[in-house]
């Protein structure tokens, strides 16, 4: 009995998404941007805080989207990178006294390195094995953070309290609103950079690897380098999101970064549409608001509601929000005629 796998005919782990289908058109982008800029002016502070979290999780989902939708690798371990980013920012702010804005690039860099290193063993793994290794990483992370060895820096089980920054230059806005616009600027910057990354030579290399690894390496793509690079970039962006999250929530603790977070981010990606970057924000909205609604129906039911909705998405709209957007676009097109 031989165990031979047909590789060439094997279906890729992730369905191919054409490059142009990854982004929104200019007009739609401007409308979304205007909505994001103007919305906080009309709502209460708590809703502004939720919108900030929406952007932050959106960034984390975007990062996962680059990894999975771009280079075809899985990760159920994004919460680990998010935690490292959050702790980097928190420790730099509270122990070193660094300005909050400066901690973010450092968090990003450290996470990039961490992700790049984790990408090395991940190179040997594909599909389910990779999902498994990253799953283990996410499960182990809270325990690593609780270690007595790091306790002086991390605050152990209690975690760290982070001070919320005031608006600079005496701008007349609340802390929440300032943080929202601060996050918005960073999110837009990273979004544009991501779109450009996927359109560049490196992005094409990612997608070639996603669609057919052997063909990609035959065409001269350095598979090992680009796979680890995708991991690094994804981890880096997640780290920035984690840092922002720590500042927005004003608190980091090991139990905030469990496997549940990793699974939520994964869900966000599936709901938003794998490989469709604007879908990240839709997915992020899903993972922030759906649990609230589910808890409202019955306490402890959020897992079931999540699960059922996920199955509905898988069966009815396997391409997530992207599919909905395309259908909507076609409908609008028909109405115009």
């Amino acid at each position, binding site marked *: 009995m031989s165990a031979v796998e047909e590789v060439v005919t094997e279906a890729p782990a992730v369905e191919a998404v054409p490059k142009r289908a990854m982004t929104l058109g200019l007009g739609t982008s401007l409308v979304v941007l205007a909505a994001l800029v103007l919305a906080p002016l009309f709502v209460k502070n708590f809703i502004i805080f939720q919108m900030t979290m929406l952007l932050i999780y959106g960034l984390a989902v975007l990062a996962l989207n680059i990894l999975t939708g771009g280079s075809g690798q899985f990760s159920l371990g994004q919460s680990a990178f998010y935690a490292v980013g959050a702790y980097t920012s928190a420790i730099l702010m509270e122990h070193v006294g660094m300005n909050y804005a400066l901690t973010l690039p450092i968090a990003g860099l450290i996470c990039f390195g961490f992700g790049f290193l984790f990408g090395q*063993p991940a190179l040997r793994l594909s599909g389910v094995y990779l999902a498994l290794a990253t799953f283990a990483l996410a499960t182990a992370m809270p*325990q690593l953070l609780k270690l007595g060895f790091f306790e002086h820096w991390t605050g152990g089980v209690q975690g760290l309290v982070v001070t919320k920054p005031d608006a600079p230059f005496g701008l007349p806005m609340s802390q929440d609103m300032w943080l929202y616009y601060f996050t918005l600027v960073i999110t837009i910057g990273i979004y544009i950079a991501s779109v450009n990354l996927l359109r560049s030579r490196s992005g094409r290399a990612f997608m070639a690897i996603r669609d057919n690894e052997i063909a990609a390496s035959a065409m001269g793509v350095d598979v090992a380098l680009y796979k680890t690079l995708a991991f690094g970039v994804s981890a880096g962006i997640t780290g920035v999101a984690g840092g922002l999250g720590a500042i927005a929530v004003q608190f980091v603790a090991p139990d905030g970064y469990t496997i549940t977070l990793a699974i939520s981010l994964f869900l966000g990606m599936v709901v938003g549409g794998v490989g469709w970057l604007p879908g990240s924000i839709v997915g992020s909205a899903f993972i922030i608001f759906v649990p609230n609604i589910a808890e409202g129906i019955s306490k402890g039911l959020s*897992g079931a509601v*999540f699960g059922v909705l996920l199955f509905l998405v898988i069966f009815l709209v*396997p391409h997530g929000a992207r599919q909905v957007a395309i259908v909507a676009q076609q409908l609008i097109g028909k109405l115009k005629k």
Partner: protein
Amino acid sequence: MELFTNQVLAGIATGAIYACMALAVVMIYQAIDHLNFAQGEMAMFSTFISWQLMQWGIPYWWAFLATLIISFAGGILIERLLFKPLAKAPVLTNVAGFIALYGIINSFAGLIWDFTIKQYPTPFGSSPFLGSQLISTHQAGMIGVTVLLLILLFLFFQYTRIGLAMRAAAALPESARLVGINTSWMIALGWGMASAIGAIAGILIAPVVFLEPNMMLGVLLYGFAAAVLGGLTSPLGAVVGGFLVGIFENLAGTYIPGVGNELKLPIALALIITVLVFKPAGLLGRPIVKRV
């Protein structure tokens, strides 16, 4: 030296838990080529069913038998309803499906039986086994059941027509179809068996870790580690891997300074990654050769 022997014994005792879980993981991997992330939750749910049956006054062994049948049917039902339509879908969709199943089962178990910790009876008693303080009769019974299960599985796969058909369907689905094997039902059967084995694992584990909806998360991770260590293609490997992981965990806890209870999960992580990097096929698994 005595400390060492004792720790190895204790390791074998905990290893039996992981061996059981790993066996279920390998079963499903053989049948469908995916790791089922909801395996632990399915086992937990089965254990709750048996607990409920016992609460209604059904004797232990009848409840045990009924639970096995319900789990078997449940496994097949889940496959037919939810995962058969996904057979041709990308891996990503399947992983998402497993996670969804995980959430649903966990949540419903909490809803029906709530999150308080429950005692679970053991048929073997919990007095010291052969005068040793480290292994109780329950743990000895667990090792016995695991080994028995392994032998039964071996006989099933080697000497029955349906076992052969299942192996054929897993190894070369196309050729198996050509000789008239209904591969789709073989997969369903694999789900049913994995679910039943998971139920046995859950019932054996519950007296040790106590019954609650989240009891399986750590065990599942160790089960994965054991399955990966032994080789995902080999049931024997899974059991050997389970015992090795148990022994390793205990020895690391005793001899490596700074490794206490809190580092248990990171050890599983380190083990999984080390094995996957240095010997991806595991100790007893067949390496998969790729034709390009």
